[in-house]
């Protein structure tokens, strides 16, 4: 079975890449997180800042099946994406495959252009939107715009509040919105919170995949991580995976 998690949000810096990295790691350590063993494919569509799969980021290894840099601003590139994924789509008939796509802040162009191709590709890839919710009004209205543009493709999904930007009670605009009432109330959308990771560790590991940093004890540029960093990273990984495993429950 194939599931594609489309990690999206209203602007840069809300934590889309971090959420994509955490979801990838959650499935890399599937057994420990009570999830089915699966092939993990990571795609970075953030062409202005490819922190997910650019240099030093997630790359094919024993745990990551494949990675890609894909500019999805143009609808025609979505069709090329399907061509490129033909093999993995075929494999998904026999085994579990999870694709994680980190979207750029410019993604709205592709969604709101009313492109039938984009909608079809999303359906074909069995896409589950993962919306990284910020504390601004835009974050709520942009999500509503996506739903209005492609209601069928956004009929279920996950909202993630990033606790890096404040405790959960600070997300008042989301909590008070009609969008939340409708989505969470429907039972088709779920909500979770991404735990905070220390700034110091974030700086030290940069694009290094979490599982690589823990295994090798090194961060960006081969920088050695301290014991405290490893403990912090492991704790974050455990909490984040517990929070993010919920994504597997969406969409059957």
């Amino acid at each position, binding site marked *: 079975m194939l599931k594609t998690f489309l990690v999206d949000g209203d602007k840069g810096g809300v934590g889309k890449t971090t959420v994509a990295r955490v979801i990838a790691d959650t499935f890399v350590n599937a057994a420990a997180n009570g999830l089915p063993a699966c092939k993990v494919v990571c795609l970075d569509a953030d062409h*202005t*800042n490819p922190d997910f*799969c650019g240099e030093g980021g997630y790359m094919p290894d024993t745990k990551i099946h494949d*990675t890609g840099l894909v500019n999805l601003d143009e609808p025609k590139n979505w069709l090329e994406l399907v061509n*490129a994924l033909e093999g993995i789509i075929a494999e998904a008939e026999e085994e579990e495959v999870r694709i994680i796509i980190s979207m750029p802040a410019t993604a709205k162009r592709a969604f709101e252009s009313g492109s039938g191709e984009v909608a079809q590709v999303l359906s074909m890839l069995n896409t589950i939107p993962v919306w990284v919710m910020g504390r601004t009004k835009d974050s709520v209205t942009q999500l509503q715009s996506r739903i209005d543009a492609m209601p069928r493709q956004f009929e279920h999904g996950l909202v993630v509040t990033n606790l890096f930007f404040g405790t959960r009670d600070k997300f008042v605009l989301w909590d*008070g919105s009609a969008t939340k009432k409708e989505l969470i109330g429907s039972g088709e959308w779920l909500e979770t919170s991404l735990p905070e990771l220390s700034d110091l560790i974030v700086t030290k590991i*940069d694009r290094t995949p979490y599982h690589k940093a823990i295994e090798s004890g090194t961060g960006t540029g081969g920088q050695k991580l301290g014991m405290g960093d490893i403990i912090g990273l492991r704790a974050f990984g455990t909490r984040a995976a517990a929070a993010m495993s919920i994504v597997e429950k969406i969409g059957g």
Partner: protein
Amino acid sequence: MRGWDAIEDDEEDIPDDLDISAKSAKVKSEVSKKVFLKQKPAPDQVVAADKPVATPAQRHADKISATAESNSQPPTSGFRGSIKIGNNFHGIDDVGKQAEQDREANIRAIASLEALEQQYGKPKFNKP
């Protein structure tokens, strides 16, 4: 017959004073190259040659293996995956700088939001 036309065009590039056997060898090599490129073997021919038709999964595996091979060359961008669509990726080597700027901008935005909250109180919503 376009292939033959192309070969005739190519002949014009061969100097007249070239040894005739060398000219013949070059034409022959061009013929085999062009015919090979133009002729796509039918699937049954491939099977007859004891090479099974590649499944999409196999093609994908081959692609990864080809990418791994090309990755043994000095990397230009550090990217290692097999899928690349679009060529205007920026900042591949500019690790984390943009994210850092975005994050700082968000922190500033939240600080001003909190200042507004302190001044005017939390936003109120119409209860349904």
